[in-house]
């Protein structure tokens, strides 16, 4: 079920109430049952896939811990291969066959195939990676194997973060299921505020911008350069608000129940380099790739050429994780190229800036770094959003052409929506800047209750009245 649905508005309070009413020993069972209901609201039968991966990694964890030497490593690889096979079949089968067929046809071997009608289970990539990190950490001896199937299954299926992360580490989350969580007013209200902020990002900002972006990117050749540019900028905010909004709701919901999930975003569009961006964007995924792909490949402790390869491969694979399409691979690789170029040219750029008198921490330099990073990120998003490489190339090459100020609106996004959309983005940015510079929450805590409640109620009513509710799925659900 979606967070932005009537079903969740009923489901969550009921589950929360039952959670705090039940004795501690039964709470993990409730969470597991609730998580099953949550997942089965999408396509019920696909819960069997979850059960299979849970079974594989639950057994693997225990056997790995009890084994030693080569058998331990063999069990690890068997577990990884089994889990990844499930991921490959449901996510990459058609992509693999299509790519192979395309290559074969390009080489003159005319083969055809019928695509299998396989529906991607919601959140497959997320819970697969969460399971993989568990077995790897058990293998590395940094996590004890969980012997209680109910606790382990709940760790994989915990509904706030089941379908779109954050991708948790066992050291952080697993033990929390054994700890009692009492009802604490301050913690609950903190969680509610976090959820409200997430709903603002998703309903007011992301889903509104999606109306424009979907129209333009569905048929870029029917839109002008100005519309392509606006859509590309809007997409940058749409994907950020959609995904970080989901994370906020997930973190807030978990917080209400007494669980602490990891932060997944840290104002990424304020980054001054691609490297910094990837420390702030989808933090749970980028750290996963760093810990389980990049570092095992050698990381930076290899010759320069190999370091470059490690970066490019890690980012390309990260792109592929996002979807079975060459556009995602290209997007990931492009980010890798940005990082490599940035790293290789760091000293030259330093010399250049120093030569023209723009020192390291001057405002001018910070603005140049920030704006360059933002532009490069937005350009890369074109690949992420386009339906295929041909569309992406068309958008790239037509951003600056045919700017017509009388042709801004699209079929679904009327001109009168524009002030609301821009206003929502500004409100978002003001909120983010204010929160970073001013302890907003502690200041509002000092206001009289009536003023505080008036502010909170006004915010909730703003989200209610200005939100877009037309059953739009979170973007990252498709991954």
């Amino acid at each position, binding site marked *: 079920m979606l967070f932005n649905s009537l079903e969740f508005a009923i489901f969550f309070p009921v589950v929360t109430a039952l959670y705090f009413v039940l004795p501690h020993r039964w709470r993990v069972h409730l969470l597991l049952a609730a998580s099953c209901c949550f997942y089965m609201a999408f396509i019920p039968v696909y819960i069997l896939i979850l059960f299979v991966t849970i079974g594989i990694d639950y057994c693997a964890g225990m056997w790995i811990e009890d084994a030693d030497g080569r058998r331990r490593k063999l069990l690890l690889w068997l577990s990884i291969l089994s889990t990844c096979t499930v991921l490959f079949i449901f996510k990459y089968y058609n992509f693999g066959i299509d790519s192979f067929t395309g290559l074969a046809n390009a080489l003159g071997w005319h083969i055809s195939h019928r695509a299998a009608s396989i529906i991607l289970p919601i959140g497959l990539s997320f819970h697969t990676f969460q399971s993989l990190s568990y077995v790897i950490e058990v293998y590395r001896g940094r996590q004890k194997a969980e012997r209680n199937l109910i606790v382990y299954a709940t760790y994989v299926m915990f509904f706030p973060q089941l379908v779109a992360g954050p991708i948790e580490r066992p050291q952080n989350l697993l033990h929390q299921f054994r700890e009692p969580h009492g*009802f*604490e007013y*301050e913690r609950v209200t903190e969680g509610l505020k976090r959820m409200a902020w997430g709903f603002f990002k998703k309903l007011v900002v992301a889903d509104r911008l999606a109306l424009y972006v979907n129209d333009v990117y569905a048929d870029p050749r029917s839109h002008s350069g100005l519309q392509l540019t606006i859509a590309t900028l809007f997409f940058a905010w749409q994907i950020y608000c959609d995904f970080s909004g989901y994370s906020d709701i997930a973190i807030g919901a978990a917080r209400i129940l007494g669980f602490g*999930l990891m932060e997944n975003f840290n104002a990424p569009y304020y980054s001054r380099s691609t490297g*910094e961006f990837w420390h702030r964007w989808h933090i749970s995924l980028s750290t996963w790739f760093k810990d389980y792909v990049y570092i095992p490949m050698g990381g930076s402790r290899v010759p320069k050429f190999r370091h470059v390869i490690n970066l490019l491969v890690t980012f390309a694979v990260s792109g592929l994780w996002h979807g079975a399409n060459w556009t995602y691979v290209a997007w990931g690789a492009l980010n890798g190229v940005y990082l490599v170029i940035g790293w290789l040219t760091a000293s030259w750029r330093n010399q250049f800036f120093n030569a023209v008198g723009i020192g390291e921490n001057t405002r001018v330099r910070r603005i140049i770094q920030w704006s360059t990073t933002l532009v490069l990120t937005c350009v890369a998003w074109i690949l992420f959003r386009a339906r295929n490489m041909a569309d992406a190339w068309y958008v790239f090459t037509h951003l600056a052409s045919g700017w017509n100020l009388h042709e801004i609106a699209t079929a679904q996004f009327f001109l009168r929506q524009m002030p609301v959309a821009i206003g929502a983005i500004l409100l978002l940015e003001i909120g983010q800047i204010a929160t970073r510079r001013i302890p907003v929450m502690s200041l509002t*805590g000092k206001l009289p209750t009536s003023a505080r409640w008036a502010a909170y*109620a006004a915010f*909730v009513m703003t989200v209610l009245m200005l939100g877009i509710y037309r059953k739009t799925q979170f973007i990252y659900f498709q991954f």
Partner: protein
Amino acid sequence: MSTNAHAVDSATMSTPVFAPHAAEASRLPLRAALLRLTCFFALIAVLAWSANEIIGIGLRRLTTTHYGSWNAVMQGKVNADIVISGSSRAAYHYDPRIIEGVTGHSAFNLGRNGSQTDVQLAVLNAYLEHNRRPLLVIHNLDAFSFVPTSEIYDPALYVPYLNDPELYSSLTAIDPGLKKSRYIPLYGYVVEDMNFSWMLGVRSLLGVPPSERSFGGFTPQNRTWTDDFESYRKMHPDGVSFPVEHSGVDDFTQLIRTCEKNHIHLIFVYSPEYSEMQEMTTNRREIFAEFQKLSTTYQVPLWDFSSWKYDANRAYFYNSQHLNATGAELFSNDLAVRLSVWFAHQQQGTPEPGASVR
């Protein structure tokens, strides 16, 4: 780009960053905490309910746009001799001012954008419940007339009147989801409605209603031909077909019976459609055979304007299905002249010469 501080080259395991915990504060007792939370959510519920009522009052007060037309219907202020019902092709094609001017009979356009026959019937029933029965109902036909509605279009139009039992039961029979709009505050205005129609209600209360764009329910489209048809044709190189659903045929039968029961004359009119779109509809014969069958079985005149003299001229259409304002004026004149003849025959008690049917 600075890489020193953030280069991806650390060999150490990443440390997760957790959401900052609230500062240690005095812990409220459980009962007080639950009471506070309950009071806050009760406040939100009261605000939502109040906003719902205020918006409804504002929308019911509108006298302009299609909201104003609908309010006139539900408040029993129309009482016209001729009522036109149908989809957007009815709402944009039939100018009641012209029909009134030529025939001498008052006219009103009940056409509903985005509607199928089931919703059009519900709208007609609501009209009959609140206004005196008309002499004549002109029901506009479409190629998709036999396709049932899956979801009510423009639900905010009906939400202020969902406490009307007849309207509520007929609309919820079509779209059961509409029940939520009655019982959950703001659901109909913010979840179901994508047009922010609630702002019209607020404007109405503030004394700043939207400008009038509808005339007796008719909304002229001051637009020129768009590229939509070319895109549509590219997407459907093999043409399109519209199903003839049994439930759609039933809706027509109910419409006919409603008019019979209320002693209202009924005429089916297939208003002009761009000629190239007619050629694209692969099952047009089947659809018109069903229209003819209904016409013959129930003795309802069928006036087919498929061969209208301007149906190949894009200057009078803004897309393949809809006439623009100029086209609507021409068509309304042609229709009104024919209606005058029909009224004359009715007065004399002689049947009108048979309708042309393709």
